[in-house]
């Protein structure tokens, strides 16, 4: 994860501004709260402090104590309360200080929040968001990629954007969605990438992947920080005459099977790159889908480049070894292309 060039923000309209990933998120919350008084924010240190990463800076000043709530250190209570609020028509945004702490509310999310609409016709429009991912030497308890726990839970939607444009547009869409949405913000991207975003209101549809780079020799599927790693690898592959099509999944649940299948039917080869650990990661799910729906189109195995099946180690040497990187993606892609 070396080069961060804000790739893939070509959607940005002219006249927009270059903003960081973090600022895009802040803007999304700000604008949604401005637009709709039913939108409230709660979490640890989100008010006076503006959030551990300052994603909610200025929100308290504008929207006041009733709408920006500093909470006790009680993840289950925060998420439970947000769910209760949603029953009265509010649209709460909940911040987990680090996404690692989301597992402290695992029961509340997977049993209460996720199942209400199916079981008793109760929609719970709420967004649970927070900084996730590694690469910043946060160690085993501040680097989590917990997406698959939730992708495996029917009733939730799961978003994991890679650009400021998408972060803002998808977060706005999440706030307006009638379902509980998990919104993961890769903290490595927070201040490292900038991108252009238009001046006015816009949303990015949930459940739609995006082709970031067109190619014909193989398809690379990725998301979040690994999107950028994959694009970097694709550049290097192009040097060797291998044109990789790079797709940003953006939404992990529901998956955009259509875009995935369309690309793989063209390239006939697929490599999945994710920062989450390997066993039980989303690459497996994609492999199964491709087997089911495009088996005859596959000219090579669905391959995966992922983190190791270990906790996230702390030392930079160890974490670098643990994480995927452009070189690993390059090597795997080259092998696959040659298959």
């Amino acid at each position, binding site marked *: 994860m070396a080069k961060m060039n804000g790739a893939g923000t070509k959607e940005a309209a002219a006249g927009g501004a270059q903003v960081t990933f973090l600022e895009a998120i802040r803007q999304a919350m700000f604008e949604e709260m401005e637009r709709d008084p039913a939108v409230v924010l709660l979490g640890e240190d989100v008010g006076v402090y503006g959030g551990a990463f300052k994603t909610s800076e200025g929100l308290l*000043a504008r929207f006041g*104590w009733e709408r920006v709530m500093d909470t006790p250190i009680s993840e289950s209570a925060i998420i439970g309360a947000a769910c209760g609020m949603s029953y009265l028509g509010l649209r709460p945004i909940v911040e987990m200080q680090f996404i690692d702490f989301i597992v402290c509310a695992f029961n509340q999310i997977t049993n209460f929040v996720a199942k209400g609409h199916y079981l008793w016709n109760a929609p719970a429009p709420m967004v649970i968001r927070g900084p996730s991912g590694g690469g910043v030497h946060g160690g085993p308890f501040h680097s989590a990629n917990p997406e698959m726990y939730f992708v495996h839970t029917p009733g939730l939607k799961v978003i994991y954007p890679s650009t400021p444009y998408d972060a803002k547009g998808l977060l706005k869409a999440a706030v307006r969605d009638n379902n509980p949405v998990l919104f993961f913000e890769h903290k490595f991207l927070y201040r490292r990438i900038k991108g252009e975003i238009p001046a006015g209101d816009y949303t990015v549809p949930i459940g739609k992947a995006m082709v970031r780079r067109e190619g014909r020799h193989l398809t690379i599927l990725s998301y979040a920080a690994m999107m950028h790693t994959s694009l970097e690898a694709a550049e290097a592959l192009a040097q060797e005459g291998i044109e990789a099509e790079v797709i940003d999944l953006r939404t992990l649940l529901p998956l955009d099977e259509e875009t995935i299948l369309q690309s793989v039917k063209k390239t006939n080869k697929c490599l999945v790159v994710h920062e989450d650990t390997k066993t039980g990661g989303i690459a497996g799910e994609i492999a199964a889908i491709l087997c089911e729906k495009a088996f005859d189109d596959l000219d090579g195995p669905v391959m995966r480049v992922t983190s190791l099946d270990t906790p996230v180690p702390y030392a930079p040497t160890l974490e670098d070894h643990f994480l995927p990187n452009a070189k690993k993606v390059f090597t795997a892609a080259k092998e696959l292309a040659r298959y």
Partner: protein
Amino acid sequence: MKKELTRQQYVDLYYYMRLNRAVEDTMVKLFRQNKIVGGLYSSLGQEAISVGSAYALEKKDWLAPMIRNIGALLVKGVPPRDIFMQHMAKYDSPTKGKDGTSHFGDLDNLHIVSPISMLGDLIPVMTGVAMAGRYLGQKIVAMTWIGDGGSSTGVFHEGLNFAATQKAPFVLILENNLWAYSTPVRKQVPVENLADRAKAYGIDSYIVDGNDVVAMYSAAKEAVERARAGEGPILIEAKTFRRLGHAQHDPAEYVPKEMRTYWEARDPITLYEKYLTSEKLLDAKSKKEIEDKIEALLAKEREFAENSPMPPAELAEESVYCTGDDCHKIRAKWERPVAEVTPPKSSVAAVWTVPGFGSGKGSGGANAPIHFGDAPAATEKSVSERKPPAKIATKTGAKKPLKAAAASASRKARR
């Protein structure tokens, strides 16, 4: 709040307790006929709690039942057929057979939140309901129940603590029926009165005879009105006893015989009937009328329930997600001016001004309330007064005094 109940109210309480018991008796029959899917819980002997507490709520208020609160659902207006059909997993049940027992709710009309099996989860959820109601200016109160056993869950603590910091208009009824499944309260909670749990959150609590419906109603009524007035959440411990096993399958042989005998003599319906009779609030005729009414009602409701079909298989595939406005039009019901919570009125300086903690830079010394409707806490001292206690090591509730030598040693150290 009225000091005396009206005749109608006295009779209502009786009617709902009888209805509660009759509904459950009917379900035992259905259970024996194998018409109930899954387990069947009983609130035998605990009817006064569900009925008395729910009767203290207004129509606009919100509740969420636990497994032994069928009575609360009936008081809130749920027709018995819905309860029968839930247990029978019928298509016309509120959840269309997707879930059973008291696992259903009604957001739009009755203001009921569905429980899930995991104990304690409703506490933060109802806290959120209470907070949202306050935010929207609806002046509602939220209520739910928890068992002695359920009070040991982490989410009980997180939820009640959060409600307390927010002064949420929330009333929690702790039904201490002395058992959690086979485990006696003493093995779960090492305090005599579970109301003491409230002390950890600085909130008020009541202890009530849970087999006395008027006492239960009165305490709940007072708590509900205090919560509505902005005094914050209140915990009510209702002392009672689980007369049957955990569910139908459990003969509860672990319960000492003397304990059972003691409580069987304190049946809440029998006790209340005696009281009503002696107070001339109920005579044989009106009692008979009530019984007939319940019998006729339940016959009809049961018939409806039995005639309802099982859900079609394909329904299993539907409704994991809300598909949008066509599915649910979600609109908050504002009962206060929205301008109060939108800029510029909502704007505040982002500094701490909680009394007792002073204010951050640039606050100008004003005290911002920590939540809507909070009165400035008069008893709070200013920052510089908030020194640690003069005694160096004070024991709260300790048995032996702390050794004097050490204390004096460090008393000197401070000078």
